[in-house]
């Protein structure tokens, strides 16, 4: 047992935490991130990499269901931590650390849980791969684009060409082709495997569709959010992907905002607007991949929440200088979701969204700088907000990495703020 325990003790220092943020729990999540960092714990990006599942706040029914599924996907040893409020963070983390060391309990858990990954009955959303199974292009098989070809003759043609054993034909008749629209399978030899399943392990095969290159590549369905690193918590973007291009998207907020108490009303004294801006800056910089800048923005955010002024001022000043001068950063973000004044008008977006992602990054840094310096009190969180329901209109047609950058550059407010205005 000595070795196992020693391993567990060492492993504890590198624990990874999958953070689920229920709408309205922005402050909890931020405090959690800071406390995690102090222990040397890092956020996990997927359940596959996580040891601890930390749920900030009390999730609504939809999010709770998703949390269950994320829990199922964690490899184990796994521990759950319910972080109900910013003040509960430390105790929750301590408890999680203690539970992680409890090797016998994890053995039992590993024995008793489902041994094989399964697809849950409801496949609605979730940011992670298992839900986004890529049912694979069946362009060769599915015949969405076949236009003039009629299935029966098509199947017949294939059968005419092949020396199929009779049994193969019998099996073929057992298959329901009408539902799955797979005429092209006519020539297949089914003798070796009777009731061929067009949805192996319950994953339906993908269907093709028109794409911008005219290749009829298959469409995959991938929900972005609500639990996804550097993504506005609570937002779900149901995307249809061809390759990695989003051809269609539909936005929703998890749990429909049924329990939204805005962070502004509840924590108005606690949360400086600059900290929220800084957090969005962290997301954008992390998505671009400039790790040092993201880390700097994060520590500025944490310092702001502590009420520190001088530290963030210096940090933001430097950040501003680097962002303005970095050629590669500009190269990376130029041309991402360019918005003209007419676009702003049409989608009723605030003026700060003008230009492309680089312009918005610069304006975001400048606003943070102004707020930190106190020269300009700045707009409080929730005013001049970007309505989340325009996101699908903006991102359709973009590559998925660009979508992420585009959404992050819009500087959305944490979710309940939206509901608050929406309900008013």
């Amino acid at each position, binding site marked *: 047992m000595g070795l196992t325990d020693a391993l567990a003790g060492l492993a504890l220092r590198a624990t990874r935490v999958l953070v689920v943020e229920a709408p309205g729990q922005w402050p909890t999540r931020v405090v959690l991130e800071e406390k995690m960092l102090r222990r040397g714990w890092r956020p996990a990006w997927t359940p596959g990499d996580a040891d601890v599942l930390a749920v900030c706040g009390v999730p609504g029914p939809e999010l709770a269901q998703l949390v269950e599924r994320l829990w199922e996907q964690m490899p184990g040893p796994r521990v759950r931590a319910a972080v109900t409020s910013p003040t509960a963070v430390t105790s929750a983390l301590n408890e999680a650390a203690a539970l992680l060391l409890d090797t016998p309990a994890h053995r039992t858990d590993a024995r008793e849980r489902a041994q094989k990954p399964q697809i849950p009955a409801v496949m609605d959303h979730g940011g992670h791969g298992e839900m986004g199974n890529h*049912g*694979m*292009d*069946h*362009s*060769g*098989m599915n015949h969405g684009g076949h236009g003039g070809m009629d299935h029966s003759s098509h199947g017949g043609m*294939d059968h005419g*060409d*092949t*020396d199929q054993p009779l049994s193969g034909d019998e099996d073929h008749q057992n298959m329901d082709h009408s539902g799955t629209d797979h005429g092209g*399978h006519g*020539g*297949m*030899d089914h003798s*070796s*495997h009777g009731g*061929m*399943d*067009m949805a*192996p*392990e319950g*994953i339906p*095969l*993908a269907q093709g569709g028109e794409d*911008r*290159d*005219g*290749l009829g*590549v*298959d469409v995959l369905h991938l929900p972005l959010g609500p639990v996804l690193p550097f993504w506005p918590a609570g937002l779900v973007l149901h995307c249809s992907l061809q390759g990695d291009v989003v051809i269609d998207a539909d936005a929703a907020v998890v749990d429909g905002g049924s329990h939204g108490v805005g962070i502004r009303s509840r924590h108005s004294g606690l949360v400086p607007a600059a900290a929220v801006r800084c957090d969005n800056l962290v997301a954008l910089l992390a998505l671009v991949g400039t790790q040092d800048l993201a880390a700097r923005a994060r520590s500025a955010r944490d310092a702001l929440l502590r009420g520190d002024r001088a530290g963030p001022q210096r940090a933001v000043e430097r950040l501003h200088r680097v962002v303005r001068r970095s050629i590669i950063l500009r*190269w990376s973000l*130029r*041309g991402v979701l360019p918005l003209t004044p007419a676009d702003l008008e049409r989608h009723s977006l605030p003026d700060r969204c003008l230009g492309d992602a680089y312009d918005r990054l610069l304006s975001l840094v400048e606003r943070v700088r102004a707020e930190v310096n106190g020269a300009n009190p700045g707009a409080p969180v929730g005013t001049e907000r970007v309505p989340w329901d325009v996101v699908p209109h903006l991102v359709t*047609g973009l*590559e998925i990495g660009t979508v992420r950058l585009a959404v992050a550059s819009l500087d959305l407010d944490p979710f309940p703020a939206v509901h608050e205005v929406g309900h008013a």
Partner: protein
Amino acid sequence: MVAAIVFWGLAVVAVAAGVAVFVVDSMARATYALAVSFIAVGALIILLQQSYLGVITILMMVMEMAVMAVYMVMFMGMNPALMPMDMTHGKKTAIGASTGVFVLLASGALLIPWPERRGVPPEDLTNALGLEIMGEKMLVMAVVGPVMVATIVAGVVLAAGRTRYDRLGDDLRRRPADDPQPGGIGR
């Protein structure tokens, strides 16, 4: 002795992986089975003391299969769930023909009295090959080069869905070009 064991081991891998290409259910597996077959043949060529050609075979074929896999997925695709599939026609004829060809070739290989070896391999084969290409056989490479270029051009022309008129407008004057995905140097 060791060489013989290695040889037959690689030979079995090469042929088995070749068979696997047409047997396995998954597209990715089929493609990479072919890659394994090529790697084994490349190793066999190295065993036959032609290290440059052997290594270059492995290099090219692994790269090619990596690209091939993308085409497989794009054009026919298969779930990694290993969905059983078989898209063949004229299977019996094909088996007959290929068995016949194998018997013919193999018996030829075994029965024809191959002549004795003439000459000895050069000391530094790679160097000798380079001198050969740049010397006597330069014409061959001089032909292969343009053929490759022609292939690149023809391949792009055949495969591209958009012409320069789509990109640059009817008078070819639109700048920057109208592309669905902008490039990296801002043209």
